[in-house]
């Protein structure tokens, strides 16, 4: 079976979901992306991507608890699935490390 492709933002959201652990909800994920990339991310954009990732089976979700600061509304907590981790694994660290130029010799190979 061909591996499903992940967009750049989808991969960022997936990575942030993994980083947030058991408390991964829209706002926490958007803040994690902001902390990692320095880019402001809207919560709405995060939810559209999370919805797409859930349809693909990369994440699963459940209702969380109500807190007073949320006006009595529940959180939707997301957790990355094994399939999501598999989709992400070749990409981990790809945004932090620039790609090596073609034909470059790794340090210590000579």
């Amino acid at each position: 079976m061909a591996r499903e492709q992940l967009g750049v933002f989808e991969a960022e959201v997936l990575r942030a979901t993994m980083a947030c652990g058991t408390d991964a909800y829209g706002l926490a994920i958007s803040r994690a992306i902001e902390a990692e990339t320095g880019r402001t991310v809207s919560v709405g954009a995060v939810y559209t991507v999370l919805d797409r990732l859930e349809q693909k089976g990369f994440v699963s979700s459940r209702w969380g608890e109500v807190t007073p600061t949320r006006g009595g509304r529940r959180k939707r907590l997301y957790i990355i699935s094994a399939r999501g981790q598999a989709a992400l694994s070749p990409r981990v660290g790809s945004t932090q490390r620039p790609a090596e130029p073609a034909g470059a010799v790794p340090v210590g190979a000579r």
Partner: protein
Amino acid sequence: MEKVAKPSPGLEVRRNGRRFVFRDGKMTAAGPKSGWYEPGLSASEIKYREQLVAGALGVTADAIARDLKRSTVTRLEIIASNAAARIVAESEKRSPPKGAAGLVAFFAPVKVREQLLGDLEEAYFDNVKRIGPRAAKWSYRYQVAAAAVAFLGPRILAWSGVAAVLKRFGAS
């Protein structure tokens, strides 16, 4: 000087569907209890409570007299109602912009509406502490606009056929 009776634990007031209780010189939101008017309240107790509420709010006797001429409601009702109105106004000043929150219900799918509104509200109250209520309101409106673009954008593209054209030419 007339001796006033000792007040009962708290005076409940209802305003705009919300309940408030006046206790220890402060008006605060009350729990889900019965209405504010207590039948059988003695005249002296009403007067004592009036003094407490008026003292806490800085209401002048003249203002109360003017209101009484225009209306048949009791003094206590006027003062308590004004106090509750002030609290409602204060709390609305601090709450997220209602129009923007209403827009979310218009464009966001039902399955993400609750968590999206909750997240926006949580971010709003964090921002109130961090950057103040005015900037927090603008940040809230910006987040709602950005969410509208995120949710409506793909639907508009699909509807207009632009997405199909882009896909055909390899741009996703």
